[in-house]
Every structure is written in C-alpha cells, then in structure tokens.
C-alpha cells in the first residue's frame, strides 16, 4: 500500500538508508541539508508512522576552557619553562631567572616544574635547571587535543582516541582547561517497515528522474481539451439582459403558447390581418381555449375593433391558441393585469413565425422587448432609451426613421452604424402603443415599446451572415468561437 510522505520524510529516509545504521540528528541534518528543526519534526513524524527506530542515550561532551585557551595561545606552562631555560643556556640556569622569564604565577610555575621533571625534560640540582630534552610542543597529545577542541567546539568524550583520552585526563586535572557537559542523544535507524517504504520512494524518485532527466519539447502544443460553456447565443442574451437591468428594467417571462386574443386582438390587430393567417402564424391544431381575460376587457377590445376596423369581431377567432409571434403578448398581458402607473419592464424569449428557413429567416427565434409606462413620457424619451441601449452594446451612431407597426403610433425603426461592417444596419423597431390598444385594457398613460430579434445582434457580434448557423449546433463552432469578441 502506498503511503503519503512529506518531502522532509523522504529525504530523511534516503539519508538513513545510505548509512545503514544509527544516525544522530546532527548527522541527519548534515546529510539531508535540512535544518535541525526540520530534522526534529521529520523524525517525530517518522517515529509516529513506525518507519524508524529511535534510541535515546546520555553522552558527555567536552570543550576547551579559559586556561586551555591561554595555553593554546602561548603554549603549556611546562613547554614555556623548557623554552625559557633553553634560551638562557640550558645548563644550570637559575630557577629564579627562569621563573621571571616565563612570567608564570607561582602555582603554575611549580606545576610546570613538576610536569617537566616527570617527562624527563629537565633535571633540577641546587636550584639550577638543566635541560635534558628538546620539546616539540605541537606534537604533544595535550596540545593537539586542545587545538582540536578549540577548532571544533564540542567533542564526545566516548569518541576520544586512547591518546586523546590520556591527554584529556591530564588536561582535566588542570583547573579551567576543560569544560564538560552531559546531553541526551537521539539516534535513529530505519525500521523494517521503513525499508519497505524506502522501496516505494526509490521507485518514485527513479520515475521523477526519468522524467526530469529527459528534456521535454516545451514548444510543442499540448492535447486539446474543451471548456464547458454556454451557448454563444446565451452569452448574447446575458449581455443584453445585463444592460437592461443596468438601465433599471425589470425582467418578466411568460408562456410561449398564447391565445390569439393576447397575441393579436389585444394589440388591435384586425382578425383578417395577413399576419394572423396560418401562412404566417403557428396555431395549435384541434385546440381552443376560452379567452383568458376578464369579460369586460374582452368586450372593450371587441368594440374597439368593430369601431376602428369596421368589421364584426369573433370571439371564436380570439380563442385559438397560437405560438406567440412576439413577446408583446406577454408584456401587454402584464400591463393589463398590473396596470402600473410607472414601469420599465423587459422580456427576452422565443417567438415563432410560420416561415421556411433561410439565411435570414427562422421559424423560431429570440426577441428582446422593452416597455416603459410613464405619465409624461414621449417619443424623444423612447429614442433616448434606444440610444443608451445601443451605446452600451458599443454601437455609438444611431438614427431613426419612421415606420409602421399595427399596434404602435408613432412608430420608428432604428438604424445603427456598425464600424466593422462599415455600414448602417437596421435594428430594433419601436413606438408608442396606440390608444386603441391601451384604452380597452384600462391603461391611461403612454406606453413606450421597442424590440427586435436578438439573433441580429448575435450575428453582428460573431460576424455570422446565415442566421441558421446560430442553431446549427456544430460543436466545432460552439467550442471554437471566442466568448469575448475583441
């Protein structure tokens, strides 16, 4: 079973494996390049995982003391004594003279005499010193030990050689030559489990090596992956929606299947209007539904038709179910039901026309529509809203032409200048609802309305000139078209 190891742990395990025996923490630090804190932490973790065995023992450490340092600088007192005596002739030099030449304190001088005599360097006779042997101070075991201690700091007493041990004993008897301390020592070794883990690490490392050792072609393209994303038309819907909400408009939504009443009659579209024929509008077969409006509203709409268009209005015709030909079926219904004093609402949704598909016509597409209800609102306000909407879409040049819609008067269409295409493009239509539309619904103030096909905006944005392309669902396109068109 694979076991997750921290990099610190791996390095410790590899170091222990190299030694094949007990290692102290210092040693581990040295071999791994980790600092002591990291080593201690790692050892704790490994111990917890049973990867290492631990042995704790007490050891004695020694180092050089204050007097030892002096001796290191200006030699051991006995050496200085022999040196002074030698300089003064070496044969029968007065003890007193030697003493003053060495500049040693009494007890030191006496000890020096004693050591020098014991080693047979000098003899004493009647207060006179006779030098018997020349002295190589550097090769003395005591000096060498002092020198090592001075260099290394602490040494382990138990690791001293036999010579060092003797020198140590000699030096220890002199006050302040040696300082000692006792510490606890931690030693670690890989456990059996540790060796099995080792194999895992080695395999991993080998693999890593194999990868890193071989240079990779950093210039080559990588395999293709595709992002999850929204449909490109949905991105446009989102953009338009965000603009309208930013302009203070409230989003509404409604049914796609509507009665002819709300789709046509409430919008003062006469019942023999060409748009209502089956060649242009989808009707649901074999279904009729009683008109979903208050009786008084139906009556007022009916008499408005008979008065304005001079024909006999049929409720049967209004009961037919149609796939809405515009989202106005939803907005007008909202107005009739809420009769707001003031409102700014919008709707984005599917609309349907019984058309053969072509590069510029679909049987089903999206419409965005906005409505403003306000007591003193005007045609110029309507133009201002359009201008602002287009500006937020990045279309800065707008002009307006008169046009005709059955349920608005006056009616305008907007033309926007498209920089990339370098020409004027027709976009939304707009107008103020005719009184014959608003009055029967009990709305007593102007209603500005505007809207158009969303696909048109998408085509401009993506540079598409066949509207069917937007619904082709070719994955190469959906995956490939950039979301932000620069």
């Amino acid at each position, binding site marked *: 079973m694979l076991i997750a190891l921290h990099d610190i742990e791996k390095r410790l395990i590899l170091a222990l494996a190299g030694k094949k025996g007990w290692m102290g923490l210092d040693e581990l630090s040295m071999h791994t390049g980790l600092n002591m804190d990291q080593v201690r932490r790692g050892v704790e973790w490994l111990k917890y995982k049973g990867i290492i065995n631990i042995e704790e023992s007490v050891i004695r450490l020694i180092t050089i003391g204050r007097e030892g340092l002096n001796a290191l600088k200006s030699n051991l007192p006995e050496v200085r004594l022999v040196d002074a005596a030698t300089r003064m002739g070496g044969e029968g030099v007065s003890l007193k003279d030697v003493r003053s030449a060495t500049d040693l304190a009494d007890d030191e001088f006496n000890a020096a005499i004693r050591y020098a005599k014991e080693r047979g360097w000098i003899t004493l006779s009647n207060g006179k010193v006779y030098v018997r042997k020349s002295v190589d101070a550097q090769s003395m075991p005591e000096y060498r030990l002092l020198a090592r201690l001075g260099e290394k700091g602490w040494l382990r007493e138990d690791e001293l050689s036999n010579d060092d041990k003797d020198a140590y004993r000699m030096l220890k008897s002199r006050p302040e030559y040696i300082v000692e301390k006792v510490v606890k020592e931690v030693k670690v070794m890989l456990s059996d489990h540790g060796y099995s883990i080792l194999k895992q690490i080695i395999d991993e490392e080998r693999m890593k090596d194999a990868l890193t050792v071989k240079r990779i072609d950093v210039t080559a393209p990588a395999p293709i992956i595709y992002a999850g994303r929204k449909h490109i038309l949905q991105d446009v819907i989102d953009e338009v929606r965000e603009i309208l909400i*930013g302009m203070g408009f409230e989003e509404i939504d409604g049914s796609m299947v509507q009665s002819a009443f709300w789709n046509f009659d409430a919008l003062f579209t006469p019942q023999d209007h060409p748009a209502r024929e089956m060649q242009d509008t989808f009707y649901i077969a074999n279904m009729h539904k009683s008109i979903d409006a208050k009786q008084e509203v139906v009556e007022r709409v009916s008499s408005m038709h008979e008065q304005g268009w001079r024909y006999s209005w049929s409720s049967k015709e209004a009961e037919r179910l149609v796939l809405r030909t515009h989202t106005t079926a939803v907005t007008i219904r909202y107005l009739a039901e809420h009769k707001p004093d003031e409102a700014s609402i919008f709707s984005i949704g599917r609309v349907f026309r019984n058309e053969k598909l072509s590069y510029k016509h679909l049987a089903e597409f999206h419409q965005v529509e906005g409505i403003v209800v306000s007591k003193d609102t005007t045609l110029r306000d309507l133009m201002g809203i359009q201008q602002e909407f287009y500006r937020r879409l990045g279309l800065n040049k707008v002009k307006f032409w008169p046009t005709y819609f059955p349920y608005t008067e006056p009616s305008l269409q907007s033309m926007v200048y498209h920089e990339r295409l370098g020409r004027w493009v027709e976009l939304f239509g707009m107008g103020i609802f005719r009184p014959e539309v608003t009055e029967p619904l009990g709305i007593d103030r102007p209603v500005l309305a505007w809207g158009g096909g969303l696909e048109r905006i998408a085509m401009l944005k993506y540079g598409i000139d066949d509207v069917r392309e937007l619904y082709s669902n070719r994955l190469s396109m959906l995956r490939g078209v950039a979301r932000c068109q620069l």
Partner: protein
Amino acid sequence: MPVVTLQHRRLERLVGKGIDEILAMLPYIALDIEEEGNDYVKVEYNPNRPDFSTDYGIARALRGIMGIEVGLPKLNLVESSVATFNVDASVYSIRPYILALVALDGRMDDEDLRQLISMQEDLHMGIGRKRRKASIGLHDYDKVDGPFYYTTESKDFKFIPLNSAREMSMQEILASMDVGKAYGHIIKDHARYPIIKDAKGNVLSFPPIVNAELTRVTEHTRNMLVEVTATDLNTARDVLAVIAVTLSDMGFKVASVSINYDGYTITTPDMSHRRMSLPMDRLSLLGLDIDRKEVIECLRRSRLDVDEGKGKGEGEGEEVDGSIECLVPRYRVDIIHWIDLVEEVAIGYNISRFEPRYPRLKAMGSRDRTLKVLDDARSVMVGLGMLEVMNFNLVSMLMQYEMVGRRMDSNSLVVEESKSKEHEVLRDSLIPSLLAVLSRNVHEPYPQRLFEIGKVFSRVGESIREEWSIGVVIAHSNANYTEARSYLQAFLHTLFGIDVETEPVDEPPYESGKAAEILFKDKMIGSIGEVSSRVLSNFRIRVPVSAFEVIISRLIAK
C-alpha cells in the same frame, strides 16, 4: 412588404428635386431602400400606405415633406357622372359591392402602365386581402358602352378572358388558368359566378378572377373604366380612392359613376376629404416644443390640411389651442384616429430633427426568479464541463417520436399547416433534439457532453402546460449509466442541495434494464438511462450515449 421600383429620372421630374436629395429623404417618409441601381431604386413601403404603391404617390408625399407643395393634393375631378352601373340582386350573397370611376383624356407611357398594374397587384394583395375582400378591374373605356351590369352567370357561361385567344367557360377558367387556380376558392362554392357586362352584353370582367381580353388596357388607352368589386364596402371605397388620386396625378380627369342598387343609387368615387379633430394636448407625446402654427405647417407637409375656422377660439371660455380641425384626403386610408394625426405631425416635422433624450425613470432593475434559477442551472452544468446547445421548441414528428421509438398520441401538440417538416410538433422532451445534435457531430472529437435548457409542452385538458426542463447527453466510448448518474447527482446537489431516487423503468429512448425515472419526494421529475443501441443507430451515432432529463419547473414550483 410590398416593393415599388422608382426610376430616377421619373422621380426627379415628378418631385422637382435632384435624385440625391430625394434618396436621402425616402426613409423619412417610412420607405425602406431595398435595392439601388444606376438609374433606379427599389423601396419597400408599409402596407398601411397603399397610396405609396406608385411613384406618383411617393412623389406626392416627397413634395410635401420637402416643402415643394403642401396641403391637400389638388384633384382633377369631373363633377358629373358619366356612366351607370346596375347591380343585380343575385350578387348580394356572393360579392355584393361594386364601385367605379371613369378616367378621361389621359396619356400613359409604358412605365405609367407598369406602375398602374403594379399598384393594382399591391392593392389586391394588401387591403384587398388577396382579392377576397376587394379586387380591381381596369378597362379600356372606349371598347365598351354603358350602362353596365354587375350580375351573375352560370358556370358554363363563356367569354374570352385576358391573355387567352379563345372563349372559355368560367368553370374552365377556374380549373385551368393560373389566376383561376389561385383565386377560384373565393367564389367556387357558389352556384353562379359574378360577371360585369356592358349594354351590348360584352363581358368586361369575371370578378375577382380575370378581365375580358376585350377591354385590355395598353399604353394607347386614353379613357379608362375602373371598377372595384368587394365583400366590404369600406374597403372598396379605400381602394377606389387610392386609384382615383393616382390617375388624377397621372393626368387623367376623374369622372364619377352612378351605381344603381335595388332601390338606391350611390355615386363614386367619393373624394371628399374627412374631418378629424386633433387635440393639441396630445402632441405632448412627441416631446417637442412647437406652437400651433408650426403644427399646422407639419400637417400640411404631410399633405393634410386644417380648417382654421374650427377649433381655434371656438366658443366662449374654450382655449385657443384646444384642438385643430384636420382635413384628411380620402386616399389616406391609414388615418383612423387622432394618434395617426400625431404621427403625421412628427413626420411633417421630420424625424431626423428629433433629439433623443434619456428619460428620468423611477425604475429598479430586477431579474425574473425562474429565469435566474435556469441561469444557475446553466452555471452548474458549465462547471461540470458541459457544453450548452440550443434547439427549436417546434420539431419534426419523425425526430421527436419515430426515431426514438415512441408513438404520437392525442396529447401531442401539433401545429397547423407548417411550412416545414422540421417544425411540426412542440417538444415534450429535450432528449431527441440532443440526440440529433450528437448525430450531426459524429466527426467531432469525443467525449461530447452536452446540455440544453428549454421548455417541454404537454396537454392538460383544454390547456397547455409549459415546463422548464434540462436535458443532458453524454457520448464517448465508455459512456454509461453510472457516469450519467454521477452527473445527475452532482448537478442536483450543487444546484438545489438535494438527492433523488431512481426507480427502474422501461421506456424509450433508453435500453431496457438500463433506465430509471427520477423521483424527488415521490414525484416524477425526469428520466435517466443509457440510450438504446437501436435508437443510436437511427441517429447514426457510433459511440455509447447516456442521457438524463430533469423537469426543473417541478422542483421550483411553489
């Protein structure tokens, strides 16, 4: 929308301005430039303005807005009636109305004639409602003698119809001539068919189908008889008024005709202008700061006029600017309400002079809550690496039912007379369309993980239920039920924090034994499974596909 071809030279002559100035002005009388040639321009006009069906009518409006000639157009009328029509009671149940005029002493070139014919066709299609409501006959007046008779004949009555070298019975005309096949349905069900004859029994016309060859109008025609037959009197009046003003502009003198019905007589055309009152305060809709004088100027530029004797300062205590009494020429059939006069003011003022202004609105933007949930669903799917596709609500029966091994039933929602096999029935599930998308993309790299959010429709009694749904298909060499179930879990867990149950079910398009219905609190909210190999082969998909669909509306319904 109907299209008129305008020749530059004629237009310059009729308007009295250079072509560039004219072309720049066309959009401001609501004409869309459809096509531009070296010496012509094609414009689309709105069907509410049948008077724009010739270059004469367009020139008339241009002269107004350009200030060359304003107010009501002058008509070249002959006061006295020059001909008589007698109407037989047998037409009452078929096509009861006939109106007529006689145009005298005109000269037409071939382009005038072409404009006239084109106007006739546009009127037939538009306010004539494809001849059902009204149709027009143009005749060479010199070939016939009044009085004229509007009556009926039996189906085997024969005459030489226009563009024919021989006599044909009316029945034969309906069966074999193109116009007969196209418009025969209007009168077919009647035992006898309408006919117009002169005093000698010569046939002028078989309305609303075809004229007689005898009265063919050519560029040599100097005097013309125009008759309009109709099922609606007002429509007939509108049509005749538009023709009358155009012929007058062409240089004809327009003379009246008496129509004798059983017991009463009317004289046509009625070219007297209508009076309509424009309340001054309604003009605030335009947001312009203009005075009464300017308003009147605008109306005159729109070829209307005002009666200053009325409205202004009329009666004691009444405001001087209370209303304006407008005079509307008879051919302006689009003006039916004071709001139309408001628009005439706007167009006369010229839309290009309106300055847009952003209103101060008491408004706070907000989102529809249901649509917001759908967007959240979309985000979750995208986060799961899915690609969104978009299909139509209206789909083919073949794909929605047959190809996925299902049968249509009485609850299937079919539309009437679709022009396309691709759009016949409203979707009750999103999965078939998604399979069709996979089918179109078999050459694209796999895995393909697609989703769609859309409505599913079902019939509930006499109403239609619309519910928002999300469909998912997963296609690659290892696609299976478990993976689909994982996505389903992740989706519902991330979106709503809910878990669902799946109970075995056996239904298309899924493989038997590898499908389930999705239940939340014992309510069916969707289905999941591996798509059966039979269905996959119908769609020519060569990798395994798993799919699920969740009707989101059932989870968020109050």
